[in-house]
């Protein structure tokens, strides 16, 4: 019996370590985040006369920063979706527009997300950005109880409520634009696309790539593989190698970028970086990256909160035309981009920016 009791205690300790390692991480975040701005420690009356007024001269800064909490569903260094969100708010924090707290909530069930949201609501945040499609249910459930708090979630289709904004992920726009270059570079006319699951954003992104390619090579075709996981790097790499065996030499990816880039490197193909500038990952193979510049989207939200115009909440759709998204070309790319493809790329980009051309969104059948 003695052994059993000690064992039970040991198991409890082990479990405690788990809880501590997860919980401890967000605690350190809490401690670290406010230290970059002095405002939270001073009272509202003192703030302008002490810290903020000295640091910056901009007229707008006489107002207090908007208190923003960003909730992300994977680590902030995931070099993808969550990192794009983190960098988006980080820019605004450095500008002094917002005070920031980042919370990593690795569970998506409504009850679990509620546990994350509740303390934030009690701490008086002005704007809570739930940076995942999967947080939608929890946010929609909580929002009516806190009408004074502004919420936003990554629905991507216009799913708004009175105080819940939605924001778009128009990845197909950048993918189409980059596809023009891919169509010019590809020697086989076969493109490869990978995604974790066949969700609308990803489907449209992959199809947009080949539509863009057809601007310069009408015979271009697409091989698309859906992996069934967002995290299986090895399986994704194998999928890309299988596509390369069947002729694909230019690749695009939606959410499974690590394995796709490794596969492109090994097969000697070109690949479009995903969500952040990934050219350093494979300087010879990445011809450009689709950069999701979320600071533009989040800036509009923060400004609306400050101006009191957040409600009724909007669908923030900031795409290629408004710098919410852009293609960052990589000069070190190992193959030559043909001049006619480059010219077409410039032309389409100019048309989109001028509002003369809308890049098609291809939905699944």
């Amino acid at each position, binding site marked *: 019996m003695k*052994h*059993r009791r*000690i*064992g*039970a205690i*040991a*198991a409890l300790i*082990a*479990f405690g*370590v*788990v809880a501590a*390692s*997860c919980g*401890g*991480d967000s605690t350190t975040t809490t401690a670290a985040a406010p230290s970059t701005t002095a405002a939270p420690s001073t009272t509202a009356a003192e703030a302008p006369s002490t810290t903020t007024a000295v640091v910056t001269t901009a007229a707008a800064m006489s107002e207090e920063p908007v208190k923003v909490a960003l909730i992300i569903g*994977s*680590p*902030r*260094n*995931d*070099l993808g979706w969550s*990192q794009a969100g*983190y*960098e988006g708010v980080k820019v605004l924090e450095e500008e002094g527009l917002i005070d920031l707290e980042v919370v990593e909530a690795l569970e998506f069930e409504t009850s679990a997300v509620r546990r994350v949201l509740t303390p934030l609501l009690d701490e008086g945040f002005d704007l809570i950005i739930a940076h995942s499609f999967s947080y939608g249910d929890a946010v929609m459930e909580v929002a009516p109880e806190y009408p004074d708090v502004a919420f936003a979630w990554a629905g991507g289709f216009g799913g708004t409520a009175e105080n819940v904004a939605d924001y778009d992920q128009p990845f197909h726009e950048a993918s189409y634009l980059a596809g023009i270059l891919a169509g010019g570079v590809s020697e086989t006319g076969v493109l*490869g696309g990978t995604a974790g699951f*066949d969700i609308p954003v990803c*489907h449209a992104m992959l199809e947009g790539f080949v539509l863009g390619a057809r601007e310069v090579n009408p015979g271009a075709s697409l*091989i*698309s*593989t*859906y*992996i*069934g*996981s967002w*995290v*299986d*790097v*090895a*399986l994704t*790499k*194998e*999928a890309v*190698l*299988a*596509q390369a*065996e*069947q002729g*694909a030499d230019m690749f695009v990816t939606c959410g499974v970028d*690590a*394995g796709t880039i*490794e596969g492109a490197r090994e097969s000697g193909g070109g690949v479009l970086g995903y969500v*952040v*500038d*990934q050219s*350093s*990952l494979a300087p010879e193979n990445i011809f450009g990256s689709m950069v999701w510049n979320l600071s533009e989207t989040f800036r509009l939200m923060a400004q609306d909160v400050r101006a009191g115009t957040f409600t009724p909440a909007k669908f923030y759709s900031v795409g290629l035309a408004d710098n919410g998204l852009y293609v960052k070309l990589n000069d070190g790319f190992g193959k030559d981009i043909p001049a006619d493809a480059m010219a077409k790329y410039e032309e389409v980009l100019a048309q989109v920016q001028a509002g003369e051309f809308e890049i098609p969104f291809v939905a*699944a*059948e």
Partner: protein
Amino acid sequence: MDWAAVLGAGALIPLLNAGIRLAMPTGLAAVGEALCQRAGVLNLSLEGILLSGALGSFLGAYYSGQAWIGVIAGVGLGVAVAALMALLSVTFKTEQVINGIVIVLLAGGATSLAYEKLFGVTTTPPRFDTLPSLKIPLLGSIPGVGAVLFDQNALVYISILAVGAVWWVLYRTRFGLSVRAVGERPDAADAAGVNVDRIRWCALLVSGVMGGLGGAVLIVAQLGLFRDNITAGRGWVAIALVIFGRWSPLRVMGGALLFGITDALQLRIQAAGGGVETGVPFELFQALPYIVTIAVVVAATAWARDDAQPKSLGFPYEKEAGTRED
């Protein structure tokens, strides 16, 4: 669709090679688990061992620049996690299922935390070049077979030797006999003078070596990078493969190869067939390895009739009250 692109002579060698690559990490972990379960310990911490082995091998290889240091570090961390499992399950005799799940959770959080603290937020995450393939002279030049069996990286050869070694240990050594005895009738083994706890500790450590090696193969031989949860559930598949292989190391490895090759095949069918454009749900392709494996398990179980599961699997062993020293 173009079947030649999937099953033609030219496509067969890349298919088998991809199958072996996909099978190796899971297969190694599964073979170690088979030995462990033969000793009566249901080691559900396997996913945590694989993941820790993956992180260990990444850190070792990245910081030293030497693939072999990576392999050693991966195996070391795998063994450390297995030792924690052994401490809880064998020494303290607590519920094996709960210990295993707790350790998987612990490893998931700890590896993510360690990686984030070491490398932070960056657009240039660390990576290193994976092991080149090592063609065995003469054998590697045999048409077809040579390219599949004798033109792999060195770690694949070591893995094959390791699987053979586990088989040999289990069926041809005194230790292996004790392992099998302890998994069936620990009380009888105990009466015959076998130290049940020591055998189970050793079996768990072997499982740590094999799981750590599996993680190292994934990182050092295939990817050269680390991401959160990079093993993506391979440890759980490995545990299922132990049942598939009816607790025999070679059959378990065969199951891993079947699973890996089917996975490589579904990727090729999905690509050649036009994927989602054909109206066939892509989930069906992903389910293929599982469907094939389950079908073989059902067939094998029906055919074999006898129950291969070790009788005391999952039960901590405690001596009869009367015979206890304390």
